[in-house]
Structures are given as structure tokens and as C-alpha cells.
């Protein structure tokens, strides 16, 4: 019977790992669709590549830093270059490794969203290595690897903070250092919309992410025990739906027209927010958490624009702000029955204690991710003599400037022959 549970756990988590890895496909569609044609091949290709690169880094050091023994304040220190050794986890340790690797891959993919349409390819390569080795493992260790926030009872079931906020803070550091894309803002500070080239791609990307999220959240039970993953999946779905509904309503009411990118972002924001709380809250609370996330994502994007921050694929407004909200939400809504980690929330007689832990966790993790990413990028900037392609390259597009071919060759055939100096 024990063997049976071990095998079932392993199988369920492997399925979940595959779902999470499939989220990379969602990001490819989402990011390519939300940006311009001249960068489409670059964005799609680099996303697949950086996931591969991050996997190697995770195998070499990431896994060891997060879950290793002999931990210092920042990271653990065993199982470097993970051999597949059994770690006595109640499921296959290699399956657990692959599952965790997938999460690290999602975090770097979110972070790189802030680089879109203007960073050099070499910056992607270097930052992927350093983020996956230094930034992500520290936060993950603190919260999931038995670090100091775990000891405080910080609730982050599947990674609103660990994955989404960490990724978003790196994206913020990047977008600040890279500065806005050409044409994004006018001299007087007013913003221009740079529309994505394919809303169908974007929508499909969102739906792939949505499906993958069942691996992300429900898989984070890392066990089939009592079928609890079903409840987590239920909360996940409710929050996603509520996020989309709230975003449609708020954009309709404020703009006079419902805005497709906002609706899609609303669904994602609901998912990001429920990621921390999906195992700790009642279904009605999942709906409330999703609704609030859907409103936050709309105003978050407006606020970024007002601050003069170019957030090309909404990494900050989708993963950052809802990531913070989702983490705080358990401090309000966690129920005594469900709070397997930490304490119940404010609305369940838990007082401000859990909310305080959540707030501290969000603040410290976010600040660390931002500062560490900023320092890394600053160093890369000095090393490479700049993070950004030249103005001319940015205008011709990164497909041709970084890779020499177009994602949509027929569309750019004329430009290409001109660029090559043909008659």
C-alpha cells in the first residue's frame, strides 16, 4: 500500500511537471503575440532556449541551493550536480527534481518578459545563468527549502512570491535599466500603445498557461493524499474565471470598451494571486481573490505607464502586483482547517499575525529579488558595454539583428533585401 502511494504521488507530480513545462509554450505564444512581428522569431526561440539553459543551471546549483542540507542564511549546500539520489520524500526524488526545475524555468521566463524587444541576446544568456543560480534559489530556499521565512510559517503554496513576484521583480529591474522601447513614450511623458501583433496567439498563450496552472498549483500538493489536489484545482479555476470577469468589467466601465489584453491579463492575474492561497482558502475566498486581482492588473498596468515604465508583456502588472496581493491574501482568508502551514488569516480570528508574516515575506523577497537582479544586470551592462541593442537594430527588429532571419520572412522580404543592400 505504501508502495502504491509512492508510485501514485510520483506519477501525479510527473504529470504536473509536464504541465508546468508546457507553460513555457504558453509564454512563447503570449509573449510573441503581445509584441511586434519583427521580434516574433527571436522571442519564441529565446524562450525555448533559456528554459534549456536554466535547466542545466538548476541541475548544477539551483536545486542544491534551494533544498540542500548544511544551509546558511541564504542557501543550502548539498546535492550540487544532482545525481538522482533518493532523498526520502514520499515520492520519486527525480520526479520532485523535475517538478522543481520546471518552476525555476517559469520564474526566469517571467523575468525575461521585462527584456522584450530591446535587450541583446547575450544579456538573456548571462542573466538566465545568474538569475537561476543566485536570485531564484535564495527566495525559494527561504520559503520552500526550510529557510527563515519557512520557519515563520510563510504561506506560499505554489509560488505567488517564490516564482511570480521574484520573476516580476527581476523584470522590473531589467525594464528600468533597459529603459522604454523606442516610441513607447512621447517627450511630454504621455504613452503610446505598442500593440502586439497577434491577439489570437496571446489568447492561446493565456489558455495554455491556464491549463498548465493545474500542474503548477494542484501539483504542488506533491501528493495524491485524500485527493486534495482536486480542491486546489477548484480554487485555481474559480480565481482565474473571477480575474477575467473583473478585468472585463473594469475595462468596460472605465474605457467604454472592454479591452482584450486586459481581459486576458485578468485571467492570469487571478491565477497568479490564487497560487499562494489555493490550498489555504475557501472557494468563495478564491473568487474574491481572483476578482480583486482582475481589478489590480488593470490599474497596475495604468500605473506602470504613468510611472514611465515600459512593461512590454505585462510581466509587472500580471505577475508582480497580483503576486503581492495573492501572498497577502492568505493573511486575510486562510482558514483554520486549511492552514497546514502558518496560522489562519485575519477574517478567521488569526489576527494580524499571519498577515504580518505574509507582508514581511513579500517585502523581503521582493526587495532581495529586485536588488540582486539590479546588481547582476548592472554588472552585465558594464561587462557588455550596454544591455540594449543599437537603435538601428531595435528598429529593424531583433529577429534580423540577433539571429539573421525573420520569424515572418515573407512579411519582411522587401526590408530584408534593402537591408542587405540589394537593388
Amino acid at each position, binding site marked *: 500500500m505504501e508502495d502504491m502511494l509512492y508510485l501514485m504521488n510520483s506519477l501525479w507530480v510527473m504529470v504536473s511537471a509536464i504541465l508546468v513545462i508546457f507553460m513555457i509554450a504558453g509564454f512563447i505564444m503570449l509573449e510573441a503575440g503581445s509584441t511586434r512581428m519583427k521580434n516574433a522569431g527571436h522571442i519564441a526561440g529565446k524562450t525555448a532556449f533559456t528554459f534549456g539553459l536554466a535547466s542545466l543551471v538548476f541541475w548544477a546549483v539551483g536545486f542544491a541551493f534551494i533544498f540542500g542540507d548544511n544551509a546558511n542564511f541564504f542557501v543550502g549546500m548539498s546535492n550540487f550536480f544532482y545525481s538522482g539520489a533518493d532523498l526520502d520524500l514520499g515520492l520519486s526524488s527525480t520526479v520532485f527534481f523535475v517538478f522543481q526545475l520546471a518552476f525555476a524555468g517559469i520564474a526566469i521566463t517571467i523575468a525575461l518578459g521585462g527584456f522584450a524587444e530591446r535587450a541583446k541576446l547575450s544579456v538573456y544568456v548571462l542573466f538566465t545563468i545568474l538569475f537561476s543560480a543566485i536570485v531564484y534559489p535564495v527566495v525559494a530556499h527561504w520559503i520552500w527549502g526550510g529557510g527563515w521565512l519557512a520557519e515563520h510559517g510563510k504561506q506560499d503554496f505554489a509560488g505567488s512570491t517564490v516564482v511570480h513576484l521574484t520573476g516580476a521583480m527581476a523584470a522590473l529591474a531589467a525594464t528600468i535599466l533597459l529603459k522604454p522601447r523606442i516610441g513607447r513614450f*512621447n517627450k511630454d511623458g*504621455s*504613452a*503610446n*500603445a505598442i500593440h502586439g501583433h497577434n491577439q489570437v496567439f496571446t489568447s492561446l498563450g493565456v489558455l495554455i498557461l491556464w491549463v498548465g496552472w493545474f500542474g503548477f498549483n494542484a501539483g504542488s500538493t506533491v501528493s495524491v493524499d485524500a485527493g486534495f489536489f482536486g480542491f486546489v484545482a477548484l480554487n485555481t479555476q474559480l480565481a482565474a474565471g473571477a480575474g477575467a470577469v473583473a478585468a472585463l468589467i473594469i475595462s468596460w*466601465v*472605465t*474605457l*467604454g*470598451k472592454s479591452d482584450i489584453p486586459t481581459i486576458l491579463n485578468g485571467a492570469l492575474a487571478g491565477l497568479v494571486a490564487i497560487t499562494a492561497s489555493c490550498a489555504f482558502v475557501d472557494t468563495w475566498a478564491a473568487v474574491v481573490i481572483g476578482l480583486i486581482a482582475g481589478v489590480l492588473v488593470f490599474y497596475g498596468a495604468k500605473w506602470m505607464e504613468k510611472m514611465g515604465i515600459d512593461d512590454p508583456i505585462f510581466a509587472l502588472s500580471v505577475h508582480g502586483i497580483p503576486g503581492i496581493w495573492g501572498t497577502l491574501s492568505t493573511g486575510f482568508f486562510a482558514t483554520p482547517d486549511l492552514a497546514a502551514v502558518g496560522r489562519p488569516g485575519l477574517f478567521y480570528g488569526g489576527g494580524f499575525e499571519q498577515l504580518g508574516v505574509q507582508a514581511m515575506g513579500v517585502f523581503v523577497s521582493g526587495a532581495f529579488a529586485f536588488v540582486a537582479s539590479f546588481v547582476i544586470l548592472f554588472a552585465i551592462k558594464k561587462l557588455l558595454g550596454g544591455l540594449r541593442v543599437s537603435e538601428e537594430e531595435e528598429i529593424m527588429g531583433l529577429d534580423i539583428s540577433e539571429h539573421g532571419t525573420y520569424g515572418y520572412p515573407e512579411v519582411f522580404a522587401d526590408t530584408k533585401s534593402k537591408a542587405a543592400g540589394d537593388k
Partner: protein
Amino acid sequence: MTTREQTYANIRQEKEAKMDRHLHSTQRLNAFHDEIMKQVLTIALQIHEHEYGPPPCSYSLFLLGSAGRSEQGTISDQDHGIAFEAHTDEAAAYFLDLGQTFSDGLHTAGYPYCEGKVMSSNPVWCRSAEDWKQQIALWIESETLDTMRSLHMIYDARVIHGDKEPVSTLKQQVAANMKKNPHKLKRFFENIQFMKKSIGLFGQIFTEQNGQHAGSLNLKQSAFLPYVNAIRVLAVKEGIDASSTLLRMKALTAVPAHNGRMQEYEEAFRLLLEFRLRVLRNAPDYDSSHYINIDSLGPVRKRELRHILKTAESLHHYVQRFIAKG
């Protein structure tokens, strides 16, 4: 610099210098615009006659668009056309050239060219009376959105030089056809049926989201066009010859079917005219002269604007229902 350009530039200078004195009412401002345009025309005529001799026949030069309706703001582009009596190639060439001279003059004097080429330098808007008659018949017959739009344009025509009668005849032709055939009037309305929603259920004003006018409302699109278009449809239906929206409203008040509603609409439209003069008087160029930044308005102005936008919507629906009834 030729003397011709100097003269136009002088007119422009005079226009800019004296503009301030004519800003207390739209009526006054438009009388001033008329005066300036007539000065431009006088010079254009002198130049043209000097080169090509006197006109081969009588003709009417008319203004279209906001100038035709006497509803220009401080800055306005040019829209105009010519109808001439003689149906000959010589006359056509003569007046088309005159149209070009006039149009260039207006441009130099500070009335930018019309992007849609609604100018008498364009053969579409510079024709013999006979040609015009056939063209309008054709526009009505083909009833596409484009040709209906041209009918909307021509119905705002106002003669500033020459006999008024030929232009009135064209308008009567339009109105008579629509009266005879309610389906055409429906098409005429459908041309302006789309109205950009600019005020929400809770009184929130929908502004531009992007670009240099972010946070601003396009007053022409959101406020002026709904009034102007809806009233023009009623004017055609009732065969009213007047070009200005206010005069049309006055005439419509005399029609029993509209008597009950028109006062409310007229008051709101007057408020809109006054509102624009107060708020947009310092616009730097034609494009900016339509945009009004909502955040810069005080609470009273904001309330006025809401009232204007809501009434515009109500008028639009009123006309829609009226046309649907046939």
C-alpha cells in the same frame, strides 16, 4: 517672396492679431472667419483674372464643413466647392484653377488643406450646375457609405460668393429624393449611425488612452459630430435649407413633431459652442484644437461636459427612433 504670398501672410497676421476680439461668441468668430476668407478670395480672384481673364460665366463658391455651418473654432481646416453655370471644358478648367489658387491662399492664410480633399481644387467638388445635378442623383442612387457621406457634406454648403440659388437647388434635390424614398433617408442616417461612446453609465467620461492626447476627450468626435449629424438628418427630412445647426434647430422647433424636444437640444448645443470657445481658445494647432483634457476642468465645467455628452446621446437616439418609424 512674391507679393501674393506676402499679401496672404499679411492676412494671416491680421487674422491672428484680431482673433481675440472675436472670441466672445461663435457667431462673431465665424463672421470674422468669413471676412478673412472673403479677403483671401478677393486676392485669389485678382491673381486669377490677371492671368486668365474674367470668369466665363456666373458661379457660386460655397463653404462646407464647419465653415459651411458657421461653426468653426479658432483653428479650422478648409472645405469648399464651386458650382458654375456653363457646362463646358473651358469653364471647368478655369474654375478648377481658381479653386486651386483660392485653396493655396487659404492655406497660407492659416486654414490648412483638407485631408479628405474636399476643396474646389478637386474636380469632385468643382462642377457645372448640370454636372452637380447628375452627380447628386448618382450619389443618391448608389447609396454606399461613401456617397452618403458626400451628401452629408453637400447639405452643409453655404455660398460666400455668387448666387445662392444653385446651391439651394442642389439641397432641394437631396431633400426631395429622401422625402420620396424613406429608404434613402434611412441610408442617410446609417452613414452617421456609429457614435463613439464617450460617457458611461456612471457619468464617467471615456478619454483617449494613448498618445499625446491621453486623458483628453476629442470634442469634435464625441460632442460636435453627434449634434451636427443628427440635426442634419432631421433637416434633410424636413427640407430645411439652412446650413448652421442652430438655424436648423430653430426651423425644427417650428415643426410640430420636434417641437417638444428641440429646446433641450438647442440649449445643450449652445452650451457646447460656448464651452469650446472658453476651453479650447488657446489650442496651438488644428489637431490639438479638438482635444480637451478632462483633468484640467473644474467641477462646474465637468458637469457641463457631462450634460453635453448625455444630451448628445439622447438626441442621437431620438433621431434614430424617428428615422426608424419612417
